[in-house]
């Protein structure tokens, strides 16, 4: 007879056999058998966070940076509910993650037992799939399935709920090498006929536009995307989630699009005649008013998820498949067609785009006596040679980081785009720094977001993670304040951050270094000093201009051609 193992031992062995490096977690009653097994081994390294939300964001940051699924272990009840925000965050941005939640013993399920919640029920709408393991015999295979589902097709978080008695029961163990599920067959290759239709449409375009999203990052299609854009010579815009898949410093890149995208990107979207969407999902923050979206364009859409195609915007040429393999096919089709793009037409198009770009929509006041938040991001880019991993929280600072830190590589820009989760940045940076211990990792945040998961400073000390926290402190929930200024006649209802802590002392009390910078002339020096401290976490509290707004801006419900610019703050249409 095979050796009999307890469920908890099987759990740890399965993770090890799956190649899991880090397990982000927090112990509790329902998972104590598992924690006992974690104690007895050193293959899977457990990272103890200070709040379960931090565990999920850290695992998420790890996955976004290195591409492997992030793995989480939390206890039942409040452990599971605290993890939900992080699970939903990963779900909205299609991040591969496997979250193990403890559960009360099977005999107690449904009895309102201590620390019991219906975890499978609570997480159902925000996971790709979830499992309740009812028998120890199913444990190893379920773990394999969880990793398979999380990391294939359109990735996403998978929750595995583990009743305590299942982790105590014994059975023989073997970890399946592969798993097949009759109900789950993720698509890979695009339909060749559709690819040829797309190729014809692209080569006949006069005003083409390449619109690339998070799918190009997650689908590791950066190389193919770059080749595709170079073959055609067409303008490229990227979504908030897509930044870095195509180099931000390349002349064909016209900037991010959408609510806070560049004037030239949004105008080009509005006027284009052929649009190819590559792993982007026509989110409302991108399209603005759907009635006014790309009125003249024939649309091609590559996506691994058929449900993303023609969801918000009707697509003329849908191509279901992984962006990397489809772009490879498409590149081949373009090359072997022997045809070139319509030169004269696209020259005219580029001239028009350059005219839009000449408005220099990202310019800001560089003579201010106050620190301009944009200048901090530009200085950050300079000091880190544009090569850092940048995580961010949510709000104005997130938009400024996206606009002013030019991302040339994929997976360098780590932010909560879909759910917009404040508190994401610091724990996400933990995951990134663990994935790449020798790389520079900075968390761009604000004094409001930073305080939402600030307890993870303690985790950073425990594991010696030299993250640099760049906090743009404007004493407001800046994006809320901006909307209140624009749309609520400057009634700043509850957006003012009263009674802020002394962030320098706070950093010090967590065992880190704190810096407060309030003069524009000190910005670069402070950043150089902080990034020079290679083995220490530094919290940089930049006291910035309170009144600065994020421009350009498309107000909700407006079309992409109806942008507000900073220079004149009036509608250009």
């Amino acid at each position, binding site marked *: 007879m095979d050796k009999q193992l307890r469920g908890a031992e099987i759990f740890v062995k399965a993770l090890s056999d799956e190649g899991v490096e880090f397990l982000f977690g927090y112990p509790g009653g329902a998972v104590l058998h598992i924690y006992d097994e974690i104690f007895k081994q050193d293959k899977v390294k457990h990272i103890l966070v200070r709040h379960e939300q931090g565990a999920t964001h850290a695992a998420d940051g790890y996955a976004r940076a290195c591409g492997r699924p992030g793995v989480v272990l939390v206890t039942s009840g409040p452990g599971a509910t605290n993890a939900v925000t992080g699970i939903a965050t990963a779900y909205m941005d299609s991040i591969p993650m496997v979250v193990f939640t403890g559960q009360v013993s099977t005999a107690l399920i449904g009895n309102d037992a201590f620390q019991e919640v219906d975890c499978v029920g609570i997480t159902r709408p925000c996971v790709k799939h979830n499992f309740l393991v009812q028998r120890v015999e199913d444990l190893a295979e379920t773990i394999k399935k969880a990793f398979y589902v999380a990391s294939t097709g359109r990735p996403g978080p998978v929750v595995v709920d583990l009743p305590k008695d299942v982790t105590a029961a014994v059975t023989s163990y073997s970890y399946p090498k592969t798993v097949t599920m009759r109900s789950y067959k993720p698509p890979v290759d695009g339909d060749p006929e559709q690819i040829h239709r797309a190729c014809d449409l692209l080569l006949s375009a006069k005003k083409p536009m390449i619109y690339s999203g998070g799918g190009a990052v997650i689908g590791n299609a950066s190389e193919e995307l770059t080749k595709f854009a170079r073959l055609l010579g067409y303008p490229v815009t990227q979504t908030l989630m897509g930044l870095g898949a195509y180099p931000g410093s390349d002349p064909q890149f016209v900037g991010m699009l959408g609510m806070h995208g560049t004037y030239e990107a949004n105008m080009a979207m509005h006027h284009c005649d052929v649009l190819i969407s590559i792993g982007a999902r026509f989110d409302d923050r991108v399209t603005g008013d759907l009635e006014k979206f790309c009125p003249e364009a024939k649309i091609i859409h590559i996506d691994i998820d058929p*449900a993303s195609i023609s969801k918000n915007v009707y697509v003329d040429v849908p191509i279901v498949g992984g962006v990397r393999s489809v772009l490879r096919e498409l590149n081949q089709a373009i090359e072997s067609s022997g045809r070139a793009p319509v030169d004269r037409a696209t020259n005219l198009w580029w001239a028009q785009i350059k005219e839009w770009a000449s408005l220099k929509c990202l310019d800001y006041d560089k003579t201010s006596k106050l620190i301009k938040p944009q200048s901090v991001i530009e200085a950050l880019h300079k000091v880190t040679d544009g090569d850092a991993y940048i995580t961010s929280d949510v709000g104005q600072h997130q938009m400024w980081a996206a606009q002013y830190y030019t991302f040339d590589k994929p997976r360098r820009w780590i932010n909560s785009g879909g759910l917009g989760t404040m508190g994401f940045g610091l724990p996400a940076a933990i995951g990134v720094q663990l994935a790449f211990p020798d790389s520079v990792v900075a968390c761009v945040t604000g004094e409001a977001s930073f305080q939402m998961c600030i307890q993870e400073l303690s985790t950073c000390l425990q594991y010696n993670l030299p993250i640099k926290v760049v906090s743009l402190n404007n004493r407001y929930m800046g994006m809320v304040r901006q909307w209140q200024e624009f749309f609520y006649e400057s009634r700043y209802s509850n957006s003012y951050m009263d009674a802020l802590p002394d962030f320098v002392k706070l950093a010090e009390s967590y065992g880190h270094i704190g810096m407060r910078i309030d003069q524009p002339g000190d910005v670069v020096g402070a950043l150089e000093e902080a990034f020079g401290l290679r083995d220490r976490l530094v919290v940089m509290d930049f006291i910035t201009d309170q009144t600065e707004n994020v421009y350009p801006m498309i107000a909700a419900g407006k079309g992409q051609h109806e942008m507000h610019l900073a220079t004149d703050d009036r509608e250009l249409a």
Partner: protein
Amino acid sequence: MTERHTLALLLENTAGSLSRVAGLFSARAYNIESLSVAPTEDPTISRMTVVTSGSPQIIDQIVKQLNKLIDVIVLVDLSDGLRVERELLLVKMRHDNDLEKDKILKAVGKLEGALLDTTEGVSTAEITGSSAQLDEFVRLVDSSILELARSGTLGLQLGPKSLNSK
């Protein structure tokens, strides 16, 4: 323009699969007109019939989103081809005199239903037909109805095609 569609699904017969489908409809604000589910000849697989309505674009999304559920093995939009759709109605009706009883029996007979029981001026009948036929029956005997139970629509494609072979 609202269209009515009948979707047939095979799905894993696991504890959570029904709630995944129901949850999808409520989370995305899709309509469910009726939903019926039961295990098939293979006890690990359930068959579900959902009648839903919406614009063509919404129906397209419903089909895609259902297909995306990990527990869904196969889905066919029966409205795309030749099909048979049937619903079962169990109904209890009061009749205080022969005239009323006659009216009820006539209505049951018209749909080739079966009278199952008559006790103390109350008759219980079973009727099978299309949803529209059952609606029509209910309208005819409306004033007599004490209680009714409808199964929701079941459907199969006609001809040699089946969900199992798709």
